[in-house]
C-alpha cells in the first residue's frame, strides 16, 4: 500500500461559481430547450455565462417578442417557457407578454437583470422596480439577494409556474448577485405534492344532476388543454352524448367532426352554441371561467341552467356565477371519476345536431375578392392534423376561431384573455421551434402584424420555417366594425390605407413573400405557402368592409346575437 492510497479520502471542495453560472446550471437542470431573450447591461454576466449552456438562446429583436415566443412554446409543448431581458426598458418590454401569460394561465419563467443591489432604489440608470411593476400579473416573483439561493429559487420558480393553475413567474437578478461568487449554493428541496383529493360527495351529486338533466351541455375552456385532458373530455362526451360548446381557448378539445361539437360560444360564437347555452338545463363547466367575452351579459347567461363547475383553481368557482355543484380539481382526474347513469337526452342531442346543420357556415360569399373565412378554412383543412395557428388579435383572430379546423387545443394559439395585438408573429416563431414537424401558420392582420414585425429578422436568422397569412383590410377592422355598428359609423383613427407593401418588407428581411389579391389565387397561394421550405409570407388583400358575424353586442345577452349579412 502506498502512502498516497492510505491517505484519508476528502471530498474535494466544490469549485466556486458565479451567480451567472448558477443561473445557467439551474436552467440546464430544468432541461430547458430554448431561452428567448435580449441582452443588455444589467444581464451581461448571465449572457457571458450562457455561451457554455446546453440550452439554445434565441435572440429576438424586441423583448415583447421573447415573452410571446416563450408563451407559445409553453402552450404547444406543455412545458415551461423561458424568456430573459435586461433591467429597465428590457424588463418593462416583457410586461405585456407576462400579462398575456397570466391571463391565459401559461407557465413562464421570466428572468430580468437589475442594477446592483446598492443602487436599487436610487433611480440608477436603467433601474425599474420590475418586481413591483409585475406584482399583479405574476403568479409569484423573487428578487435574488444572495447568489447562493439561485439553484433553490429557480427550482421553485419552475415548479410554481407549472403546477396547479399555471402562470408566469419572475426572477429579478441584481448585477452583483450575478457576479457574486458562491462556494456552496443552497440546493433545491423537492417540491411538495399539493394535489387536492376529490370530494366523493360532490362527484356523486354531479352524477345525480347529470342523470336528471334533460338538456345538459358541456362548456369547455382552456383548462382542458392545460390539464392535457383532451382524451378524457372526448371519452366523456362520447360516453354520455352530451353536446358541447367551447371558449376561444377550448377550441380543438373536441374533434371538429364530432356531431355534438357546437363550436365556440360567446361574442363571436356560433348561433347553435349560444342557443344551446340559452336552452340548456345543466351546464357542466370544464376548466372555464365565465369570461365576459364568452358569457355576454352575465345575468342572461344560461338562464335555465344549474351549474357544475370543475376547475383546478378554487378561486374561479363562484367568482362570477354561483355553482350548484363545485368540484375543485384537475379535469383530467375529475372526468374519469364521474360515472353518470345512461342518459335519456336523445331529443336534446337531435335538437342540437339540427341547429348545427341549420346554421352551418356558408362560404359562397358574392364577389371576386378574397373571402377570408373561406381561405382560413381551406388553409387549415389542407394543412391537416399538424396545423397549428398562431393568431394575432382582431377580425382575423375571430375568423380563424370560427372557420379553422383544429385537431386539438394545442393547435390554436391565441391571446384570449389579454387580447394582445402583436402576439401572432413571435408566437408562431416559438411554436415552430417547439414543433418543427408541424404546419405552423401565423394568422395576422395589418394592424397586429406591424406591432412585432421586427421578428421577421429572427425568422431569417434561425431559418425558422414559419408560414404567415397576413389578412390586410387596410384598417383596424374590428374597431372599424364596432364604430360602424355601435358608434353611428363615426370612423375614428382606424384607417391604415398607407400600410407598407408587406411582401416587399418581408423580402427586405430576406423572407420569401407573395401577394394574393383575388379569390382564384387562393388555392395556389396556399399550395405555395405550405410547400415553402423556409419562412414565407402571404400578403392577402381583403375587403375593408367585411365584418365578423355573428356578433353579440357588448353588454347584451348571448340571446341577442346580430347575424349581419352572413
Amino acid at each position, binding site marked *: 500500500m502506498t502512502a498516497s492510497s492510505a491517505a484519508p479520502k476528502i471530498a474535494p471542495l466544490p469549485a466556486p461559481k458565479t451567480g451567472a453560472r448558477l443561473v445557467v446550471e439551474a436552467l440546464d437542470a430544468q432541461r430547458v430547450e430554448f431561452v428567448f431573450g435580449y441582452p443588455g447591461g444589467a444581464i451581461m454576466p448571465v449572457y457571458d455565462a450562457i455561451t457554455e449552456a446546453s440550452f439554445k438562446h434565441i435572440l429576438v429583436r424586441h423583448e415583447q417578442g421573447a415573452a410571446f415566443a416563450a408563451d407559445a412554446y409553453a402552450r404547444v409543448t406543455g412545458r415551461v417557457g423561458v424568456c430573459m431581458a435586461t433591467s429597465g426598458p428590457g424588463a418593462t418590454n416583457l410586461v405585456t407578454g407576462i400579462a398575456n401569460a397570466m391571463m391565459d394561465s401559461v407557465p413562464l419563467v421570466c428572468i430580468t437583470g437589475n442594477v446592483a443591489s446598492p443602487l436599487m432604489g436610487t433611480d440608477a440608470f436603467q433601474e425599474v422596480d420590475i*418586481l*413591483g411593476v409585475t*406584482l*399583479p400579473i405574476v*403568479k*409569484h*416573483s*423573487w*428578487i435574488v*439577494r444572495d447568489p447562493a439561493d439561485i439553484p433553490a429559487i429557480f427550482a421553485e420558480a419552475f415548479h*410554481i409556474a407549472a403546477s*396547479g*393553475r399555471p402562470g408566469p413567474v419572475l426572477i429579478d437578478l441584481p448585477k452583483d448577485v450575478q457576479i457574486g461568487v458562491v462556494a456552496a449554493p443552497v440546493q433545491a428541496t423537492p417540491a411538495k405534492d399539493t394535489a387536492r383529493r376529490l370530494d366523493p360527495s360532490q362527484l356523486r351529486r354531479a352524477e345525480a344532476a347529470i342523470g336528471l338533466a334533460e338538456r345538459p351541455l358541456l362548456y369547455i375552456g382552456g383548462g382542458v388543454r392545460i390539464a392535457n385532458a383532451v382524451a378524457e373530455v372526448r371519452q366523456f362526451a362520447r360516453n354520455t352524448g352530451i353536446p358541447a360548446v367551447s371558449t376561444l381557448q377550448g377550441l380543438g378539445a373536441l374533434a371538429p367532426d364530432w356531431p355534438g361539437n357546437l363550436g365556440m360560444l360567446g361574442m363571436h360564437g356560433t348561433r347553435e352554441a349560444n342557443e344551446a347555452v340559452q336552452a340548456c338545463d345543466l351546464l357542466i363547466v370544464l376548466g372555464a371561467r365565465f369570461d365576459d367575452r364568452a358569457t355576454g351579459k352575465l345575468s342572461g347567461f344560461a338562464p335555465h341552467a344549474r351549474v357544475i363547475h370543475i376547475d383546478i*383553481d*378554487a*378561486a374561479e*368557482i*363562484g*367568482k362570477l356565477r354561483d355553482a350548484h355543484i363545485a368540484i375543485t380539481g384537475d379535469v383530467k382526474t375529475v372526468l374519469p371519476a364521474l360515472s353518470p347513469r345512461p342518459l335519456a337526452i336523445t331529443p336534446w342531442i337531435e335538437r342540437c345536431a339540427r341547429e348545427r346543420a341549420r346554421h352551418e357556415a356558408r362560404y359562397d360569399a358574392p364577389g371576386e375578392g378574397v373571402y377570408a373565412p373561406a381561405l382560413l378554412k381551406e388553409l387549415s383543412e389542407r394543412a391537416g392534423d399538424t396545423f397549428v395557428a398562431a393568431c394575432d388579435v382582431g377580425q382575423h383572430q375571430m375568423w380563424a376561431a370560427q372557420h379553422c379546423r383544429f385537431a386539438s387545443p394545442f393547435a390554436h394559439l391565441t391571446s384570449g384573455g389579454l387580447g394582445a395585438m402583436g402576439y401572432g408573429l413571435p408566437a408562431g416563431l416559438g411554436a415552430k421551434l417547439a414543433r418543427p414537424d408541424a404546419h405552423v401558420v401565423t394568422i395576422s392582420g395589418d394592424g397586429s402584424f406591424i406591432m412585432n414585425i421586427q421578428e421577421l429578422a429572427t425568422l431569417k436568422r434561425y431559418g425558422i420555417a414559419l408560414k404567415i397569412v397576413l389578412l390586410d383590410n387596410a384598417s383596424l377592422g374590428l374597431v372599424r366594425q364596432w364604430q360602424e355598428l355601435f358608434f353611428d359609423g363615426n370612423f375614428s383613427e382606424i384607417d391604415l390605407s398607407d400600410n407598407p407593401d408587406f411582401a416587399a418588407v418581408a423580402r427586405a428581411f430576406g423572407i420569401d413573400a407573395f401577394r394574393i389579391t383575388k379569390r382564384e389565387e387562393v388555392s395556389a397561394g396556399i399550395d405555395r405557402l405550405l410547400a415553402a421550405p423556409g419562412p414565407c409570407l402571404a400578403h392577402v388583400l381583403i375587403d375593408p368592409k367585411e365584418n365578423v358575424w355573428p356578433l353579440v353586442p357588448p353588454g347584451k345577452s348571448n340571446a341577442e346575437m346580430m347575424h349581419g349579412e352572413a
Partner: protein
Amino acid sequence: MTEMLLIQIDRSEGSLQRLIGLIERRGFTIERMSLAEAGLHREVGIGVRARDAGRAVDVLARQIDRLIGVRRIAPSADTVHSEGAVPCTA
C-alpha cells in the same frame, strides 16, 4: 360591512405588497389592518369592504389563499386592535 380576515403569510420580500395589492385590485377597500411577527411568518389582520355588491369575500379569501406564501386564511371576529395594530383607511 367590514369583514375581517386573519392571514398568516411568509415574511418574504413583496409578500405584504402582494397581499394588499390583490385585495384592492379585486374590488375591496382596506378599512383596518394589523400586523404582528410570528416567527418565520407574519400574522396579518385585515378588515375589508366590498366596493360593490358583486364582490364576495369568500371568493376574495380563495384568491388570497392561492398567493404563494399564504399559509392560512380564516375569517376573524375581531383581531384588529391587538397591541401593535395599525389602523388605516384606504
